[in-house]
């Protein structure tokens, strides 16, 4: 890779980094893990940059890498337990209630199976069409529809979102 292409990757990465981290946050519910995941996806993209950059939509390619990375067996089997010697600080009250709402949304997302979580994030946060979601996840449009339907049913029944969107 020559300097121009390295610079090209750097520019691409700077542009996609926030979106990838936020997508990762939606997938993992943890900012640190989200940044790790985004970094892993971008490193894989860099390792195959000629192929990625020549793709019709390089950003979609990297998103797919990231979703696959998160689906890997290592992550599926992730042990959520954290070693800590002290009880974590409790967050202060948020008068607006928006923090609680955000936390509830993220918590509800984390309870969805990986496939459903991906569909929700791509379809409703990234505003992708069902066809685009299917292409990104490598499945059929019908599968996207059924995953979305099941995910939304779960979100509707989520106690955390009881006063939320889908009553």
């Amino acid at each position, binding site marked *: 890779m020559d300097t121009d292409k390295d610079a090209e990757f750097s520019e691409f990465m700077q542009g996609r980094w*926030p979106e990838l981290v936020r997508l990762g946050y939606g997938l993992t519910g943890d900012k640190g893990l989200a940044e790790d995941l985004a*970094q*892993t996806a971008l*490193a894989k993209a860099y390792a195959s940059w000629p192929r990625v950059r020549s793709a019709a939509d390089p950003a979609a390619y990297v998103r797919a890498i990231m979703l696959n990375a998160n689906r890997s067996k290592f992550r599926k089997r992730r042990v959520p337990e954290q070693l800590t010697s002290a009880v974590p600080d409790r967050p202060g009250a948020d008068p607006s209630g928006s923090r609680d709402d955000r936390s509830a*949304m993220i918590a509800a997302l984390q309870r969805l199976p990986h496939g459903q979580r991906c569909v929700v994030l791509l379809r409703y946060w990234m505003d992708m069409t069902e066809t685009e979601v299917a292409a990104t996840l490598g499945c059929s449009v019908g599968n996207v529809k059924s995953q979305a339907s099941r995910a939304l049913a779960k*979100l509707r029944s989520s106690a955390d979102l009881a006063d939320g969107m889908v009553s």
Partner: protein
Amino acid sequence: MTGNESQELRERLGGALEVIEPSPAPLGAVLRQGKTIRRRRRAGIAAGVAVAVGIAAAVPSLLPHGAALQPVSPPRPVITVHPGRSSVPGEIAHGTVNGKPWKVVLGKDASVRSTGLPIDASVPGPQLSAGHDADFSSTGNARVTSTYGRVRRDVTSLAVTLSDETVLTLRPVTLYGRPYVAFQAPTRLTITKVVAYGPYGELGYAVAFKGMVNQWLRSDQPVPPLVTARIATGVADGKTWSITGYSGPAGLCFDVVGPSEGGPSCFGDVGPVSRPVEIMEVASDPGHPPDFYLGRVQPDVARLELLLAGGQAVNLRPLELAGVKYFGYLNNAAPRLLGWAAYDAAGNQLASGSGRQWTKPRL
């Protein structure tokens, strides 16, 4: 779902995700990690080629006599290497592989550009490892790999032997005040030995371990005997994994064969074991607990107990390699290590600690 519901979900997702302020994009870390992936990929390709060649070589004995086969080993490549030309700024070396020209150029920013290969910024640092006549890095693709190295100032040439017995003579070129060498070769070939020469003859030599140059010996030092021992084995994902240690010409190296990405790890002069248990290497998937531990223990440690998240306890029996006891543990599920304890043969606890103590290798 109604349009209102969709819109509300979009807004709530946006509200939850858009407030996340990512840390600055870690470009340097991504480039380094990407290069590591490329190197592993390349090593995998090389291993695949080796397996293919091995199978192909074995096939004739399985065929009826008289069944004619063409030779299966690829033709020996023709590699030429010449020192960098002063007319090409930063050129360490140039040459050909099977007639195809290559050159390796060092930039002022310490990045290396090789014909047809990704740029690499992992050029060996300003200081050579202690006792080394040369340190090497490489970049490559499935077809060819460029290897470049820093050499000691009194080295006048290096003779590099590749896995097909090809011997390349490299003459250092001084760039930005430091001497460098470089060559390009087919990726399927790895370094097996390097000899460094000075103005008055041979200075030292290094025997490579799976292509890695880890230890240099002086010219009058005999080749140390190779001692190998399997120090750990187990089953993960229904597949057997093993860790084999090698102590000898290449120094101290371990080869991990298992269901996940493994590969060799080599260590320099690690000195005597000064604590009951010493962790040498941990590996993990980014953001997750380690899934691989390698370490060593003092002689009186007969058993090592790992306490894992979920209440699982794993007992390891350290095994000896060249007078030192080592242990290894691989678990693809990567359960968090909560603590460990070392016991002697009589069952007395000799030492214990928390999992956090193993987060970083100590050697």
